[in-house]
């Protein structure tokens, strides 16, 4: 099943006609790279690559449905914003309305935990506990999550490594013992809070990630 000019041209023709190419297993990485390159070339043709109005309308309906489905689930760790919504003088509204919005249960919950970034995912191995240095945070990537592991004796905490300002990836400065943003200079403390000057400007703290140690492996709750 070696790759050949005919098979590759069939794939190219499909791209040029904006059809979905057949998903046939490929013999080697060169064959994959050739098709990925064809995709990139295809997208550079004038007029290519913009979503159609019809697709956008379909997506809008799907998004509405997903958001609605999500709102009707109760979340494991309620955040602040819904509570403040409830506390800001809306108690007179019928309970049925709150139920419709999926917030009824939250009114009875105690104070929220620190924010977790991921609320629906899987536990994924990140690295061995022994590989986490005792004296400084270490960067990791797990699925869609970019974070830092911070060792505290035999346990580990994890923070998102994405700046809450504009979404740049943070660096750890051993010299100044803080997280620093390469884009606009925001800084965060080891506990994830924005440094005072930035907190005063309204920068939010770094979300926590759920983390656990299983059989010497650090696992992060990730998607």
């Amino acid at each position: 099943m070696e790759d050949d000019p005919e098979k590759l041209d069939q794939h190219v023709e499909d791209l040029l006609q904006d059809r979905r190419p057949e998903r046939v297993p490929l013999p080697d990485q060169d064959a994959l790279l050739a098709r990925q390159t064809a995709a990139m070339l295809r997208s550079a043709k004038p007029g290519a690559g913009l979503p159609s109005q019809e697709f956008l309308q379909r997506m809008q309906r799907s998004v509405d449905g997903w958001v609605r489905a999500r709102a009707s689930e109760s979340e494991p760790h309620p955040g602040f914003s819904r509570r403040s919504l409830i506390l800001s003088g809306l108690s007179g509204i019928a309970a049925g309305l709150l139920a419709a919005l999926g917030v009824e249960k939250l009114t009875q919950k105690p104070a929220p935990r620190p924010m977790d970034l991921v609320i629906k995912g899987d536990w994924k191995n990140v690295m061995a506990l022994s590989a986490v240095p005792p004296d400084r945070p270490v960067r990791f990537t797990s699925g869609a999550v970019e974070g830092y592991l911070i060792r505290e004796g035999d346990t580990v905490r994890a923070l998102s490594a994405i700046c809450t300002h504009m979404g740049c990836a943070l660096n750890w400065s051993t010299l100044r013992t803080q997280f620093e943003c390469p884009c606009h200079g925001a800084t965060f403390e080891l506990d994830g809070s924005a440094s005072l000057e930035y907190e005063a400007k309204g920068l939010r703290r770094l979300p926590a990630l759920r983390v656990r140690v299983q059989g010497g492996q650090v696992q992060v709750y990730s998607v």
Partner: protein
Amino acid sequence: MLEDDARQGNPGQRPAQLVHLRRAAPQDQDRLVWAYQTQVTAIYQYLYARVGNRPDAEDLTAQVFMKAIQGMRQDVSVAELRSWLYKVAQTTLADHWRQYYAEDLTELGEDVAPPPPSRENHEAVPRVEALLATLPDSYRRVLELRFLRGYSVRETAHELGLTETNVKVLQFRALNRAGRERKGN
């Protein structure tokens, strides 16, 4: 959006109260919908530039937003949402390509390395120009005719004075060479 939700769940409520509620909660559900509206075209373009056809780009875009909406907290900043969407797009793409070729692709720099999250412009054209500039003339020519000008194999053969079989062979070699070129960078 929120108004429609509430109205469907509670046909008896008066709209005035619902408008008030919407103002009181600018984040949460509204934020997700807003994030979708501001990011959908950029994510679609990002994916289209990597799969090169509309049906796959549409399916993958839908998957990315479904995962993001179901999996992420609602009360994070828009910048974080954007970073998150690109990360989800990358992992979704990696899964997509695994249907063709089951090896770990993490070494494939361009397609899985994090893009600068704040740059939303369609980046395909300069990338393609830079790539074509690395190729021998005959390779560049066949790719330009086929992909950028949309010539058929027959038209390309006529233009280059080759047989159709030769055009396919030349195209094959050009794409393989360009693919290795991209991987090397």
